[in-house]
């Protein structure tokens, strides 16, 4: 099996999105890049099972998602043995990709269950259809829809996004200023 140009190009074309997905899942650039690398190696090893003409990007996302799920399960076990090391790896948060303005979102995403996080990212950020996201996660379309809904609700709650409706912070600031004067 040789790596033909078309395959190589379509894998390379998917890399930026795979990284974004990986970082959204792990919150860590280094871990995400390792995941992407493993995904590429796994994909090439199994390239014969890829049906030409189908969506290469979705296929790669599926591999990355499954690798993350199994790696995460492994890590969870390791936590019990080496809590300190894991805490350190959490602390080395990516600087280049998680800018300050996304910190709140980042923290909120971390609080979501895996299945909700992956669903809301695939549909809300990667731009996959519900059907494609369902195929990637290996579940029913209805399941994806409800996970995305629950994830959005939870994110809104965690980030106090509904407060936008009643101009929360501004009103508070004004109240403080008025109180000071009085």
């Amino acid at each position, binding site marked *: 099996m040789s790596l033909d140009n078309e395959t190589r190009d379509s894998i390379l074309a998917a*890399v930026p999105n795979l990284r974004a997905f990986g970082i959204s899942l792990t919150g860590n650039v280094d871990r995400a890049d390792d995941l992407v690398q493993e995904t590429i190696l796994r994909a090439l090893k199994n390239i014969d099972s890829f049906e030409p003409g189908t969506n290469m990007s979705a296929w790669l996302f599926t591999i990355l998602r499954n690798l993350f799920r199994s790696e995460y399960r492994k890590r969870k076990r390791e936590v019990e043995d080496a809590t300190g090391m894991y805490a350190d790896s959490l602390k080395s948060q990516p600087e280049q990709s998680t800018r300050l303005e996304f910190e709140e979102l980042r923290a909120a995403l971390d609080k979501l269950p895996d299945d909700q996080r992956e669903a809301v990212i695939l549909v*809300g950020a990667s731009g996959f259809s519900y059907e494609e996201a369902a195929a990637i996660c290996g579940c029913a379309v209805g399941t994806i829809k409800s996970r995305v809904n629950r994830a959005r609700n939870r994110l809104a709650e965690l980030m106090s996004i509904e407060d936008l409706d009643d101009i929360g912070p501004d009103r508070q600031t004004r109240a403080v200023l008025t109180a000071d004067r009085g």
Partner: protein
Amino acid sequence: MTQSKDKPEKPMHRVRTGDPAPGGLSREATIKIGQQLRAMYDEVVKEGVPERFSELLKRLDDNKGGGEGPHS
């Protein structure tokens, strides 16, 4: 109730208990979340393909030594 002397430095948005029923998210909130997710995501996408990955694919290609290797 005792009043704490040290106040939090930044305003804390408290999550209300008894929030609206799930699924009852306003359109604005849904849009806002979508925008933020995409903005965070696109930051990474904009970084393009790090050398590490183009190198990796090139290396794998070379190793194969197949007929369709890069011109040398």
